[in-house]
């Protein structure tokens, strides 16, 4: 042994993740100016307990990459202060897959695109109950029944209204539904029928929406969201990032969500699906996703901000960092047409992070 303990540097072979299409170049700013923006946001959210304005969020979104960890740290403190330490766990089921007449450009279930997803009819009640049992076994407290439809017809309404109390009685889970655009009467019936939460995503800002959906309008979605609240259900209204929208349009969406005031915001990242118009897009860069998780928390301090589709593909090893950047809920297990990582991996992650999971605290 030579006794020479000098460590010579190892040449790196790591290639830095390149910016994606639409990802802005953010020029350096004076450190004092960057810290001032973050400090002002901290004061607003933790001391004054007020929402940030679009202008303030724009200033935070423009901070260079080196400040993403600062945004994430603040977002985590804001989450703890406004929502507490618990994490809500949910399972979802595509109870009627494919064959949707709408042309949402990100969706493999649209009948307007030639995708590998084959349309299948409404699952039997036994299949739905079995999926709810799987969800219950994963420690979740929420189960969402999702249908690929423009909106529910009368037969679908009746099926859902039969299933909701069945699932509740069998599993004790809160039951959410996602079945597209609703009329006032349909929203009333769902509210009276025990639907705990209704999911209807805006997906993107009003100004960008016509680029990704042409068969219905952003305003129609907004109207359904308002009906959900008017009829006493909790509103779950999510976003999908990575479709080519700009930072400004993401901020626009954030302020539009502030106006809608949903209980829950599922945050999806585009997982480009073969055969769809957005099938050739690249997933959002992981570090950029962390930035926007933090910004969604800073913009929507009191919501249940849920990890939803695309996180495995987008964040890879940074999924646990998202949990300390403002996320306080997640979908465990599989998604509607794609698979997720195992519920056990997610529960282990939460245990490692010392994040209690509602009724699952004892298990962890």
């Amino acid at each position, binding site marked *: 042994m030579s006794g020479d303990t000098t460590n010579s540097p190892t040449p790196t072979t790591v290639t830095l993740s390149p910016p994606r299409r639409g990802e802005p170049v953010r020029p350096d700013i004076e450190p004092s100016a960057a810290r001032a923006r973050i400090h002002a946001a901290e004061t607003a959210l933790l001391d004054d307990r007020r929402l940030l304005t679009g202008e303030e969020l724009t200033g935070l979104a423009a901070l260079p990459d080196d400040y993403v960890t600062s945004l994430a740290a603040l977002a985590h403190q804001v989450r703890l202060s406004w929502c507490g330490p618990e994490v809500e766990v949910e*399972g*979802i*089921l*595509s109870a009627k*897959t494919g064959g949707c007449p709408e042309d949402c450009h990100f969706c493999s279930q649209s009948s307007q695109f030639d995708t*590998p*997803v*084959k349309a*299948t009819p409404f*699952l039997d009640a036994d*299949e739905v109950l*079995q*999926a709810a049992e*799987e*969800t219950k*076994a*994963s420690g*979740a407290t929420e189960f969402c029944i999702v249908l690929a439809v423009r909106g529910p017809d009368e037969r679908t309404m009746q099926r859902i209204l039969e299933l909701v109390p069945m699932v509740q009685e069998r599993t004790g889970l809160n039951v959410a539904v996602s079945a597209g655009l609703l009329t006032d009467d349909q929203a009333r019936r769902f509210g009276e029928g025990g639907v705990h939460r209704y999911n209807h995503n805006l997906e993107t800002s009003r100004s960008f929406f016509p680029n990704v959906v042409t068969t219905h309008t952003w305003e129609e979605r907004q109207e359904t969201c308002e009906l959900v609240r008017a009829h006493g259900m909790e509103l779950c209204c999510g976003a999908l990032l990575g479709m080519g929208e700009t930072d400004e349009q993401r901020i626009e969406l954030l302020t539009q969500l502030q106006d809608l005031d949903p209980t829950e915001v599922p945050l999806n990242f585009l997982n480009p699906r*073969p055969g769809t118009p957005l099938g050739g897009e690249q997933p959002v860069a992981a570090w950029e996703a962390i930035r926007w998780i933090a910004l969604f928390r800073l913009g929507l301090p009191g919501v249940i901000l849920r990890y939803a589709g695309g996180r*495995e*593909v987008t964040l*890879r090893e940074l999924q646990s960092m998202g949990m300390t950047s403002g996320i306080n809920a997640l979908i*465990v*297990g*599989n*998604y*509607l*047409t*794609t*698979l*997720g*990582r195992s*519920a056990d*991996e997610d529960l282990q992650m939460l245990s490692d992070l010392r994040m209690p999971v509602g009724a699952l605290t004892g298990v962890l």
Partner: protein
Amino acid sequence: MDTTGDVAAPDGAHCTGCGSLSCIGCTRTLDPPRFCPQCGRRLTVAVTPGGFRARCRDHGALAPT
């Protein structure tokens, strides 16, 4: 966990991602099979929170891998 790598179809089998015999593998790790490896026909697939079920009209159920 590899979440983006393509999975190659075995020799002589149809790709479960696109149904082609000539495809060198376009099924992503987190995608369930969509085409029958025996005949390339589109599968009826039900994805559930804890797994998936895939069935070919002619060749029956595929075992989850």
